[in-house]
């Protein structure tokens, strides 16, 4: 087998059409995952009764099982649940009308939520307790203090780890091909198998992922610089 360099370009152009799908999956799962992550982190830090053990169980189960498994569990489990409920309550909705990408959104959000909760938690723990006390001392309520004083600093502290999570989800989104979603990687496979040029096609996919990741890194570093203006100290 010989390498066909020109086909790398051909494949690259064809794969471009799949970039939005990959980005949708990544952005949706990261955003919903972040919301879940903040909620879970707060539940764990404040040891909310009843919810606390649930949150702990969620994080350990999800982190203890592969992302692909989550996708398969949702893909095969969710329809059974939805259809069961639909019959029971007499809804007209059936699981067949869920688009394939919907399963990816749901399952990857759940995955991202567990990982991001740990990122957010470590960010919150990095904020000195004195910051919250100072906010209380000037008469702020706890929600005001969290929103205005603690969260901005926690976010700054967890930014490098958050960008790691985003990159992880970008790359993890390739698993969506198992439920017939055509993302970058699946598209590469299609292009490859119709032309019998696998290496070239996957190389093109790799370049696209690298470029996207590079973009995420750049954006993070710009945000990091702006957000960390106040942080003149530290070891870095």
């Amino acid at each position, binding site marked *: 087998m010989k390498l066909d360099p020109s086909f790398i370009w051909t494949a690259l152009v064809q794969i471009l059409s799949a970039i939005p799908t990959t980005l949708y999956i990544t952005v949706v799962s990261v955003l919903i995952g972040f919301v879940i992550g903040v909620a879970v982190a707060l539940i764990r830090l404040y040891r909310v009764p009843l919810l606390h053990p649930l949150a702990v169980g969620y994080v350990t189960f999800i982190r203890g099982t592969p992302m692909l498994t989550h996708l398969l569990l949702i893909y095969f489990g969710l329809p059974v649940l939805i259809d069961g409920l639909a019959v029971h309550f007499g809804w007209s909705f059936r699981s067949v009308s869920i688009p394939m990408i919907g399963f990816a959104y749901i399952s990857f959000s759940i995955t991202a939520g567990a990982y991001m909760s740990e990122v957010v938690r470590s960010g919150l723990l990095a904020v*000195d307790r*004195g910051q919250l*006390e*100072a906010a*209380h*001392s000037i*008469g702020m309520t706890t929600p005001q203090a969290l929103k205005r004083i603690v969260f901005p600093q926690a976010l700054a502290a967890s930014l490098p780890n958050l960008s790691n999570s985003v990159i992880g989800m970008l790359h993890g989104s390739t698993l969506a091909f198992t439920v017939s979603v055509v993302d970058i990687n699946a598209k590469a496979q299609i292009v490859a198998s119709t032309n019998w040029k696998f290496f070239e096609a996957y190389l093109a996919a790799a370049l696209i992922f690298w470029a996207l990741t590079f973009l995420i890194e750049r954006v993070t570093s710009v945000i990091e610089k702006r957000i960390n203006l106040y*942080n003149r100290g530290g070891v870095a």
Partner: protein
Amino acid sequence: MIKLAQISKSFGRNQVLNNIDLTVTKGEVVVILGPSGSGKTTLLRCVNYLEKPSSGEIAIGDFKVNCKHARKKEIHQLRQKTAMVFQQYNLFRHKTALENVMEGLLIVKKLPKDEARKRSIALLEKVGLASKLDAYPSQLSGGQQQRVGIARALALEPEVILFDEPTSALDPELVGEVLAVIRKIAKEGITMIVVTHEMGFARDVANHVVFMDGGVIVEEGTPTELFNHPREERTKQFLKRITPEFNYSI
């Protein structure tokens, strides 16, 4: 007037405060002295509920909180009537000096931005930091940070400012500038409760000195009474150790 009645506090089985009664009249500067572990910082932190007292009553003017069943709203009101200056400054690290002072005015007092800004600048000028409005805490020296902390506390026009060892974390050369600011605002008649180890400051500025040990108030009185004519043996021992220049015999 601030009145603490029968304040007790335990951490687990360790009783840190034991039925403390303390009355502070308006405009008075109260200095609390005592060896470490005597409960003086805990007492101060009970006044604005950063520590939850196990029992007792806190009264500021007509506003009273029964510590056994204080509600969230009461705690919030209590904190709006007080302000605190911390040993570790605790300035909001992601906000400039000006924003630190403005924060309470904007969020708690709900002042319009212009008004909050104007008042904050005036306060920072008062503590000698007019040139540092836009500096972040990490760009300020300890003494400067603490003066911002004092401006932040003053901004709220609280009934009382609580000072928790405001100079203990400072380099010796920076202690003076912070004490000078505290002295200045003390003269303006702002009620303060100060936990400190600065005996000179206590002697000059305080109207009322309290000596605590083992979770109780051992002795209290005017600075002259307490420093020159202490009645209790424990007070004498403490003063002897902390102000060796008075009774130094080898």
